[in-house]
């Protein structure tokens, strides 16, 4: 099976797995294409699970997370398959 070509994603890191999964549930319910991923090294000061969304959704996702009171500890952009 061939993998899709790598492309950019927005990635959010959280303080705890619980927060990450709160965020996943929220963004999923809102229709975001959200996927748990291993936290990249530059986010490694945080939870082992990070969440990625398509880059064009990053700002909107961040806004929803902020409104819901879910703290994003770090945000980055990664190349991923």
């Amino acid at each position: 099976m061939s993998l899709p070509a790598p492309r950019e994603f927005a990635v959010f890191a959280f303080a705890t797995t619980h927060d990450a999964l709160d965020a996943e549930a929220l963004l999923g319910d809102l229709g975001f294409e959200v996927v748990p991923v291993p936290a990249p090294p530059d986010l490694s000061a945080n939870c082992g699970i990070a969440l990625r969304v398509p880059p064009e959704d990053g700002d909107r996702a961040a806004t929803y997370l902020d409104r819901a009171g879910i703290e994003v500890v770090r945000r980055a952009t990664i190349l991923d398959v």
Partner: protein
Amino acid sequence: MSANGAATTTIYLDHGATSWPKPPGVAEAMTRAVTELGGNPGRGAYRMAVDTSRAIHRARTDVAAFLGVPDARDLTFQPGCTQAMNLVLRGLMRPGDRVVACSMEHNAVARPLNALAAAGVEVVVVEADEAGVIDVDAVEDAMRSQTTKAVVCQHAGNVTGAIQPVADLADVAHAHGALALVDGAQAGGHLPVDIKTLGVDAWACSGHKGLLGPQGIGLLYLSPACQPDELVTGGSGSGASEEPLQPAVRPDRYEAGTPNTPGILGLHAAVTWLRDNGEALRAHEAALVRRFHEGVLSLPGFRVLGPDLGVPRVPIIALTHERVATDRLAFALDRRYGIATRAGLHCAPWAHRTLGTLQTGALRFGLGYGNTEADVDAALEALAELGEELA
């Protein structure tokens, strides 16, 4: 009846120690945890580990909602109520601190307090009344003269079934600048519990008693104001692994090490069952305990400990007999009638001292899920026979 004369059926009346059987879904959830959800929760981002993490996240969220916990992150899974109360008491109290406790406490509280007293914590024990109920005014009197860090009290008695006024105790504690810490082992599932309404700072519970989950799992709620030191540190799945200390964020701060996924998922299934059926079960338990209480009062020689007939209690009845030792009653109930009960001090010497039964102990019947009127009537009939035969 077996060849050696022992009864081979079991009428299970030891729900005060641990509930049995478990409601539908508990065993299946635990099986799923070990057959499908094998990944280590919070430790990886591969799909099986994330699925396990999601299952625990859902369990925490649902159990928090069931108990009225405002923020699920303040609810942690613990190995049991004993470990949870140790965490709270040993994590909070320091030499020179003062704590006010109820005289009905189980050893899950009494023994940590005894150890803390030996380490320089002042432990003030307020005597309950003859029914095993703590007087809120007496607790307040104990706090008037000196600064008190915490009040600790059971939510319901494991010997008497008495329900303690924990919401009022929390109000009094807060009025004097103290934390309100509650051992909810006998309350969870048997009483409707809303943490927000109770206003307590810590509430611990066994998963395997009235909450109907498996053994080896318990719960601890901590209010944001209640910040005991963690007793165990280690892997958390969060925070940078190179950080030297345990992360301060909840729930991870109090859940070092790989969690008990089968236990958590079993407890989740049990609480889901209770959410849908708990009100009916509580009404059934209240009817059974009243029937049993009335029946024992009609038997010569027996005395029921705890609240009078008609006073609400969790479904526990402990009794003594004026001439027959309760351990002999317990043995005969099991061997001849297949009725499971528990004699002795029930890990609660403080409570038995308060009730005047420290030397004799008592015979405890714990009613609950799965019990019927026929079970109660069989126990009463057996007690009537044994009361005559062994006296």
